[in-house]
């Protein structure tokens, strides 16, 4: 899948989440502007349509009438769903229009990025530094990357202003509302940054294409992996990092200023007022546990459940942190200390446990398959049971077939058994990629050599053992992940 195909979807998701989040805050500030739930679906689909249409089909020669018809097709259902009441339609219609327009803007920019050579000129593309110049230059109709950053931060500022306004009005959030806002905010952040990174990659790919650069095939995959890691880190920091540690907030400064103006230079803490206006400490009532109310069994279960939920959440946070740390620091995890180390241990432990479970299941399945398949291919089982004389002749072939199967499976993972490699060289190559199974691999290839190259007879039990080891190796190869940290980029 090309990155360009994904970008409009991200743009649409970002447009939708920003508009939805703004609408949510405005709804909280002004209850009259509450949006119905069905509108969200229309916001999302209209954004998707707008982004993809603008990316792939829209151009300067598209008649304005077509654009109006396209917008009308989205506004008309909203009008009908609002009961054809114009007052009810205005706000949802406006939101749909905004979402549609933001998505359209992104789509147009993606289309514009592809025409970069039209603006920079072919002559520029023939110079060595063209790539750099085009990245570093600041003119040419508002560079796309700047466009994306500006939109991202403008949207962020809008949401922050709405949140501050809501906070200053002393509004309180229900759990469901807070959850809604957190989810929408996270979606906006992730989609916005992913769109930013994706658009940048898309732009680079276009530039590299013009410069005829030799781009490593694994770059896009690594890019996605790297961006995912960074996004998790950003998401973690933005959602978990403290937000109330600074003593001099606007509220306190204004309180101090008021105090200075009214009572003189005595500094006092801002009063925490209750509903009736009398000063009291917040949470005072919650902290007092009524003694006469004994916790019943349901209370204990509830307390335990809360404990497990929180423990699970902490575990999950540590797992995510572990994932981020492992992917950021790579092979240097053993140098870590404290919380990062704990997080890495939890991540690795859980990953290992899951892998082992998975391996055990796959192993059992593969053994069953191998035992079932090999005799079918060369009548091995039949020989073993009925014709012991032929058994010896056919058995070594099974070990060789097993090596071919290993090579076939490993070949799918990129570990090709080149004809110029000896079996033991191939074995060493497998051992490098399966360090945990090096003894098993070594054992198999030692046995294989004896079967293949010596003139001595190998016992049936030894051969069966080799087949089992081979099946084990196949399972391990199937679970292998590629490591391309020492790859090659070929250029001509």
């Amino acid at each position, binding site marked *: 899948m090309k990155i360009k195909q994904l970008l409009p979807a991200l743009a649409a998701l970002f447009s939708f989440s920003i508009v939805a989040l703004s609408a949510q805050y405005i709804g909280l500030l002004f209850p009259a502007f509450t949006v119905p739930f069905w509108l969200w679906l229309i916001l999302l689909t209209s954004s998707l349509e707008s982004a993809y249409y603008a990316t792939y089909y829209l151009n300067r020669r598209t008649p304005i009438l077509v654009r109006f018809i396209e917008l009308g097709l989205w506004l008309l259902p909203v009008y009908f769903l609002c009961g054809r009441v114009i007052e009810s339609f205005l706000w949802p219609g406006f939101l749909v229009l905004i979402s549609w327009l933001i998505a359209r803007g992104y789509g147009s920019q993606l289309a514009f990025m592809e025409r970069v050579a039209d603006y920079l000129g072919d002559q520029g593309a023939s110079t060595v530094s063209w*790539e*750099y110049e085009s990245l570093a230059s600041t003119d040419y109709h508002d*560079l796309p990357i700047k466009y994306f950053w500006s939109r991202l931060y403008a949207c962020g500022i809008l949401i922050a202003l709405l949140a501050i306004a809501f906070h200053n009005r002393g509004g309180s959030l229900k759990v469901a509302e807070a959850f809604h806002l957190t989810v929408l905010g996270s979606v906006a952040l992730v989609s916005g940054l992913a769109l930013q990174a994706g658009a940048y990659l898309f732009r*680079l790919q276009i530039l590299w294409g013009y*410069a005829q650069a030799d781009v490593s095939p694994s*770059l896009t995959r690594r890019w996605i992996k790297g961006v995912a890691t960074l996004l998790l880190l950003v998401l973690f920091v933005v959602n978990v990092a403290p*937000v109330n540690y600074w003593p001099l907030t606007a509220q306190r400064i204004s309180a101090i200023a008021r105090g200075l103006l009214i009572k003189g230079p005595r500094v006092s803490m801002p009063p925490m007022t209750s509903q009736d206006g009398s000063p009291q400490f917040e949470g005072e009532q919650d902290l007092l546990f009524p003694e006469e109310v004994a916790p019943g069994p349901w209370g204990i279960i509830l307390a335990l459940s809360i404990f497990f939920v929180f423990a699970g959440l902490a575990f999950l946070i540590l797992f995510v942190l572990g994932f981020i740390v492992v992917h950021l620091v790579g092979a240097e995890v053993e140098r870590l200390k404290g919380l990062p180390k704990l997080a890495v241990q939890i991540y690795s432990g859980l990953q290992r446990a899951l892998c082992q479970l998975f391996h055990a299941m796959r192993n059992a399945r593969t053994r069953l398959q191998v035992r079932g398949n090999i005799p079918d291919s060369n009548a091995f089982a039949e020989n073993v049971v009925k014709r012991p004389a032929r058994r010896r002749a056919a058995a070594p072939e099974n070990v060789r077939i097993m090596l071919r199967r290993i090579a076939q499976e490993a070949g799918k993972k990129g570990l090709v058994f080149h004809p110029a490699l000896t079996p033991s060289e191939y074995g060493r190559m497998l051992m490098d990629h399966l360090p945990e199974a090096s003894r098993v691999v070594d054992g198999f290839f030692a046995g294989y050599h004896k079967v293949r190259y010596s003139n001595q007879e190998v016992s049936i039990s030894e051969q069966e053992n080799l087949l089992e080891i081979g099946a084990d190796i196949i399972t391990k190869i199937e679970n292998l992940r590629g490591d391309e940290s020492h790859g090659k980029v070929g250029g*001509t």
Partner: protein
Amino acid sequence: MSGGAIDLTLWKVLTFLFVGVALLWETRPAYGLAYLGLLLFFIFQYCQGKATERLMVERLVGECYLFPDDTRSLTLQVTNPTLWNFAWISIADRIPAQLMTGKRPKRSVFALSSRSSQEVTFQITARERGVYCLGPLDVFVGDFFGIRTQRFGVVQEQTVVVFPPIYQIADLALPARLSFGSFKALWRMHPDPTRLAGLRHYQEGDRLRSIHWPATARTQTLQVKQFDHTVTATCVVFLDLYKGNYAVSKFHVGTELAITTVASLVNYLIQRGEACGLVSNAILAEYSSENVVASHEGALQILPRQGIAQLTQILTVLAGVKAQEKKDFLHLLTECAHLSEGAAIWLWVVPKDTPELIERAWNFVKKGRQVLIFVVDEVCHQELLHSSPDSPLQVFHISTEGAIVS
């Protein structure tokens, strides 16, 4: 190192603003914006900057020797010793046009994860003789979000020597075997114990191991073996690259043919096991390593030696020579004749066999040397073209026909 995709200073200032807003109005979105700015514009940029400083780029191949039309892959190794993951690194080698494969320099782009290395391969094609210098390397490093692109040059130079083409001497319209006529051995050589010349009576001081025992037994007097002396023909090739001696219209063709002729002759002589040297009034190109050549009085001189190492040295020098307009060939002969006293055979590669040149050649012949003159342009003394193979002065005309000069 500088440069960037966006105005980083502006965004850093904005981040300070966001931080201020977040601290004053404690809400999660405001703090989120501030944290995002701090991460993206400060922490990530700082880490990437530090990692870029420690990025190592090195060439895996040392000096590279090629013949025209040869193609060679050159490998660079980029190593990231830090924990930072580079989103993308783009690297290009500055390759001279005479070595470029394709129309433009090739750029390789790859991602580089922490504590890993990447090999990048470039291909060069030798087009014409010369000593070239590759590099510096042009490197771009960027992040995931297009915040900053860093560009820097890495001074990792590499010398590529493109030898002049070598032909079989028959392809130069020369006899398939050059025969050197009779000449004096200027230096007394050691007796060759494998070339038994005869026996003589024992004299005081003779070594015991040279006594011929069977003959001694037969004659009842001590007989000593007598050996022939070993004679090795030492050759020096003189190359005339004085601009004034070449016709203007054929200057490039003539000089290249002369250089090719010298390369082919040296190759032929070295393959025959002769000791061969070079003297020329040419100048060396900018990148040529002058320490390989004993430069004397403005002339290039390589003393006669045998072996493939000598051939490599002479061809390396020939790869980098250029014509000059200060020192005439006759001056060169006057000044450098004494430096090549030991050489028995002189091979002169010149554009024309002028009467002065022939007269000078006769003078050397009289001193016991053999002079072979290879004319690349115009032969004035046709009678010498058909002289006997035993003659100490011979003239050969190098033909421009065939594949030598296109």
